[in-house]
């Protein structure tokens, strides 16, 4: 039961929808190009109907608060209730949503954003600069920081000022040339109104909240005064939490739900065999193996390199994801414009790995790999790595801990573990996990040359110069870093034949980050 990508494309592409063209807008002053965020559809959309989504990944910790989104499925609600200043296109490029213009000064220490006029929240209140300021001050409240606080740490929220009804000045305590990219990541710039009450949430999104029962079900209805006229098409969305894939697939096949998320490659033939469709996205999320470079076994760079060389990346993709997804090269941010595609693709090289181990005096190495069910395929990938490493004489003993234990007191302290990340651009991701001051520096990476390159890049408003600096940084990581990034997993979702307007997306979130405003039911 192996399927090659070719088989899949032959059989399944009929149901997927291609992306329409988007216009290109130039944000003056920064040299960045941010695309206009148009919705995409082919064929004739029809108004009305209730979309029933059966989603896994939820739990009783489900939340509607856009500032605390955690799981994949939290975004299914948040991405329809709220909207960001800047969002991601299906190709993982930034595009304006609520913002109309974003410019910075020469040193990238001060930004100015102007929001669109005529946008209203679900309670009728118009969107103004005050709401933008309120949102960022809430996210960055030091006493109760939101999920995005770590990535937006440079912003001086207290110092934000209103220039006029729709324009805000954003000062940054340190240069932040990549503010636009950071804001584009899902969950980083969803705007809430002044006086937002999580118990009665309102946003500017295409759907309003009707009911919410965490871990069970939530319903949303069309927001009639949505600022993008003509959208959304659907009258209602019902999102039901499912505990596992088998129930999801059964529900989809029985016609009880219209879309499902996070399928594994094993069920593709079953779903298609029963006449339903698969939406395959080249996800930009990544599940690295993390090696601590500061203490212990992996502080010797030769052992790190050896570990990276034992991995047969294609085999891992084949076994864990049915061959779908994209092979990785131990550097993150694959869809970012500044990603260096010219780095030679690392492949499995057992002999080289063995000689590196010999040089480091580490033949017959024993290591423990901490894994957990934190994301799709993570524990399976750990088992595959262990088996592949044995070919070079390395014994990897896999320690599968509960998710709670994994993110408990030892999180970010494991010597050899895994993790999962949603898609992020290259430099913003560096600020999250690859410099000494980063909050999630799981590899404890601290390379002075790398740090100084980063400091330069983050202050450079010239995009091409930034890219050059980023390439240099990536070369260092490629040679000496503590990450093993064997692949970027695919995102496999399923949908019924009556659903139109779904597009594949590279954000790493299902169903193109749950963008339901362009979806219709025939």
């Amino acid at each position, binding site marked *: 039961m192996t399927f090659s990508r070719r088989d899949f494309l032959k059989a399944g592409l009929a149901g997927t929808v291609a992306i329409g063209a988007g216009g290109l807008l130039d944000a003056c002053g920064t040299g960045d190009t941010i695309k206009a965020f148009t919705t995409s559809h082919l064929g004739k959309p029809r108004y009305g109907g209730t979309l029933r989504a059966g989603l896994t990944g939820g739990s009783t910790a489900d939340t509607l608060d856009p500032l605390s989104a955690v799981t994949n499925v939290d975004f299914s609600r948040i991405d329809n209730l709220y909207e960001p200043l800047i969002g991601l296109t299906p190709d993982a490029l930034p595009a304006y949503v609520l913002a109309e213009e974003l410019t910075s000064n020469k040193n990238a220490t001060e930004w100015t954003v102007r929001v669109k006029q005529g946008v209203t929240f679900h309670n009728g209140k118009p969107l103004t600069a005050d709401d933008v300021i309120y949102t960022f001050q809430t996210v960055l409240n030091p006493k109760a920081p939101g999920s995005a606080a770590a990535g937006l740490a440079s912003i001086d929220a207290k110092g934000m000022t209103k220039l006029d009804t729709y324009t805000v000045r954003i000062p940054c305590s340190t240069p932040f040339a990549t503010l636009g990219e950071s804001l584009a990541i899902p969950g980083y710039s969803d705007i809430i109104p002044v006086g937002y009450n999580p118990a009665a949430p309102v946003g500017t999104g295409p759907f309003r909240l009707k009911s919410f029962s965490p871990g069970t079900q939530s319903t949303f209805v069309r927001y009639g005064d949505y600022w993008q006229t003509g959208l959304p098409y659907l009258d209602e969305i019902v999102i039901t939490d499912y505990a596992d894939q088998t129930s999801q697939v059964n529900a989809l096949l029985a016609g009880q739900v219209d879309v499902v998320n996070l399928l594994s490659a*094993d*069920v593709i033939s079953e779903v298609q065999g029963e006449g339903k469709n698969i939406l395959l996205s080249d996800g930009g999320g990544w599940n690295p193996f993390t090696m601590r470079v500061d203490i212990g076994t992996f502080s010797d760079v030769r052992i790190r390199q050896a570990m990276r060389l034992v991995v047969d990346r294609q085999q891992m993709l084949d076994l864990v994801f049915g061959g779908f997804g994209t092979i990785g090269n131990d550097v993150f941010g694959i869809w970012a414009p500044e990603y260096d595609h010219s780095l030679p693709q690392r492949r499995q090289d057992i002999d080289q790995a063995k000689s590196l181990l010999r040089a480091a005096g580490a033949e017959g190495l024993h290591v423990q790999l901490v894994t957990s069910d934190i994301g799709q395929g993570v524990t*399976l990938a750990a088992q595959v790595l*262990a088996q592949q490493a*044995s070919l070079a004489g390395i014994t990897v003993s*896999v*320690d599968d801990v509960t998710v709670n*234990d994994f993110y408990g007191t030892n999180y970010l302290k494991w010597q050899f573990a895994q993790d999962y990340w949603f898609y992020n651009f290259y430099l913003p991701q560096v600020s999250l996990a690859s410099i000494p001051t980063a909050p999630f520096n799981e590899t404890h990476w601290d390379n002075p040359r790398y740090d100084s390159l980063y400091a330069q890049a983050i202050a450079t408003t010239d995009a091409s110069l930034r890219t050059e600096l980023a390439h240099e940084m990536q070369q260092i990581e490629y040679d000496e870093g503590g990450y093993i990034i064997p692949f970027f997993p695919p995102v496999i979702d399923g949908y019924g034949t009556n659903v139109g307007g779904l597009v594949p997306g590279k954000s790493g979130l299902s169903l193109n980050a749950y963008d339901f405003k362009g979806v219709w039911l025939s």
Partner: protein
Amino acid sequence: MARRPEAVVILGRAVRTPRGATGLVIAGCVILAAAIGPAVAPYSSTEFVTSPFARASRAAWLGGDVLGRDVLTRTLDGGWELLVMAAVATALGVIVGAVLGVMAAYYGGWWDNLIMRAVDVILAFPQLVFALLLVSILGPKIWLIVLAVAISHAPQVARVARAAALDISERDFVKAMQILGIPGRRIIRRDVLPNLTSVLMVEIGLRLTYSMLIIAGLSFLGFGLQPPAASWGLMINENRVGLIANPWGVLMPAILIALFTIGVNTFTDSVARASLGVGGRATETDPVLELAVEGTAQ
């Protein structure tokens, strides 16, 4: 005093009945498969030999599992740990339970109340839930799983042992020995305990199947042996998603677990019947069940 061979006598009698022989053979086959399995398996249990959930083929007689490993190999490798854990947990639970139950019966009074109240508290949980809570607190370590299961057995065994021991303790010859000043420990060891033999033997059989059930169940729920270990309970869970593509990854371990419980149950039943007339206990129609129910009334 030639009391020890009593257990042997009963066992011998049981084996000679058709039920006993059948049960022993079935259980024995499973134990044998689990014991020599790792030595005769065609591959290693972590080797990738085919594609995930591939159907049975010449290379893999039972097809592939979730990662394309050989189902036959993993089945052969996946039994012995489970069986050893079940055996140890049973032995531990029965010993501790029997000791506590006999002490409660013999010494009575304050001891009796304390032990029986503790028993009540533990018995206020379903066995699986109790083991689940314990294991989830401290993590799925093997010694902890064994301990959790043993602790969950002890109260029931204690109850049964207490009931049986009370019966003996009330008898005149024991009272006579007490009056003569023979120390309690000796009386317990020489006269009370041996009379519990048949009861305990049946309890061992019952508890063994429950141990298997709970440990495999814990693995199934994800609280037992962790991947990439080959373990029957874990295999059933991790291969469920590919049930339609290749059911063997689930069926084979399920069949083996089922055969084991069937074999042990049948043999235990024959042991209970064979113990009639030796201890003079249960009614003749369903001694195992009588003993299972025994001591639950208060």
